[in-house]
């Protein structure tokens, strides 16, 4: 137990912890998770090609995180272990994103209230379903709160600004190219002056509804370039043009 001089109200303690965690999370760049007609797209600006913010958890489930790398990496590995253990004990179809989101929420909640310092992370657990309506996107914050986002989810960095841009331009059932272009444009809107992001600094992956068994696939190199080029025409300011590609 840490030594406490005088009385500090529980409200104050929680507020201090929340401020601390929030500051850490806002320090990095944003991650965008967005639904498209054929599945769920993940996009992030990442300085390293190998330290991933976006990863596969199980057949239909992927994980995205912002904040402190070592902390969300612990949670990611724990998620893979939990999912693999469930799938091995029962069956592959019995592994669900909702259960995983619950466990993450419980874990982060416990760490937030009991550990010396809260985790400076925010996570998304997304599960691709048979149809767009069956897709699930859960966002879990540093204190264990869970949000079931519909359509898209933005976290980390200037999440509010980036999220604003996405919500203005998001259309349900858009093409992969269109959604990718929107996500990349949105990632560049974290400053007042929009930035152009190089393909090499992007980390992009999809949960592709049509793939057999393991739906997760990273999009890199030439594949990513050509998708971005094809999505280029859809960045015009009218939001209506967004879904025309599918």
């Amino acid at each position, binding site marked *: 137990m840490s030594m406490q001089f005088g009385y500090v109200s529980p409200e104050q303690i929680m507020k201090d912890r929340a401020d601390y965690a929030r500051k850490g999370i806002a320090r990095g760049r944003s991650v965008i998770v967005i639904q498209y007609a054929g599945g769920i797209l993940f996009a992030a600006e990442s300085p390293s090609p190998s330290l*991933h913010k976006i990863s596969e958890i199980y057949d239909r489930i992927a994980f995205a995180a912002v904040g402190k790398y070592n902390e969300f990496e612990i949670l990611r590995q*724990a998620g*893979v272990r939990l999912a693999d*253990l469930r799938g091995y004990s029962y069956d592959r179809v019995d592994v669900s994103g909702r259960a995983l989101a619950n*466990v993450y929420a*419980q874990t982060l909640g*416990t760490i937030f209230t009991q550990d010396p310092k809260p985790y400076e992370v925010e996570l998304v657990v997304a599960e691709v379903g048979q149809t767009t309506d069956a897709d699930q996107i859960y966002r879990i914050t540093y204190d264990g709160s869970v949000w079931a986002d519909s359509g898209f989810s933005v976290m980390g960095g200037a999440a509010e600004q980036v999220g604003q841009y996405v919500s203005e331009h998001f259309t349900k059932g858009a093409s992969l190219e269109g959604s990718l272009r929107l996500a990349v444009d949105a990632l560049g809107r974290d400053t007042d002056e929009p930035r152009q992001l190089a393909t090499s600094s992007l980390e992009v992956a999809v949960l592709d509804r049509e793939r057999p068994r393991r739906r997760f696939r990273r999009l890199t190199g030439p594949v990513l370039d050509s998708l971005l080029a094809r999505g280029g025409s859809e960045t015009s300011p009218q939001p209506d043009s967004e879904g025309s590609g599918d």
Partner: protein
Amino acid sequence: MVDVSRIGSLPAEFLTAGTSSFTEFLRQHSPELLPGNRVPAGADLGGLTPHATTLVATTFVGGVVMAGDRRATMGNMIAQRDIQKVFQADEYSAVGMAGAAGLGLELIRLFQLELEHYEKIEGTVLSLEGKANRLSHMIRGNLGMAMQGLAVVPLFAGYDLGTGSGRIFSYDVTGGRYEEHQFFSVGSGSVFARGALKKLYRDDLTADDAIAVTVQALYDAADDDSATGGPDLQRRIFPIVAVVDDAGYRQRDEQAVAQIVEEVVAGRDVRPDGPVAPLR
């Protein structure tokens, strides 16, 4: 004493940085789920589970084919006519098993998961040798069960991205791992199958040729070994055939295999002992 406030959150073993092996994680967290950890020591278990029989594998130019018959036996009885013994291990490898079927199928499930788990945790795939060694380790862990009558003998084959060729690995029950060249077979009918493979193997086989070779070898195994199932034309049950090459693993669809099987069977109507190899 359970810390009530931590119920529902992840136990410490999940959150500890450490192994990228699923088997080792199971050993720490849920040892009761490991194959073979649920039976009393000392009992003879040999007659309790069906016995899966013959597997053959042969390389061809740029890949490898693995095929297995569909029969499982219990003593003199046929336990199952359409058992599957050849499986995808990961994107570039196939694994099959002969021996105690119940345990073998569970070992294969664990092996598949072991490779996938490593891939997800580490973000990269194991080398072909690494995968072969991992399987060896798992078979060695089963030695106790093998001594109680539940021996499992796997066959592992994959495409080596480094050399651009197919490679075959065989195992003994102690986990000994041996790289085989050109072709190999395991299981009760393996002696007969290997004889056929010897005579039919060529250095310039194509994938389709290699499939025909494995189907011929399985036919010869079934011809002389009662525990190996021949092609069942009435029930349309054919060998499971897997091809692994630079495009990855794929199981040949039943139609394609059926066609090759029918050609082989038609050939046997004329010459029941199969094709003749040149004398010199």
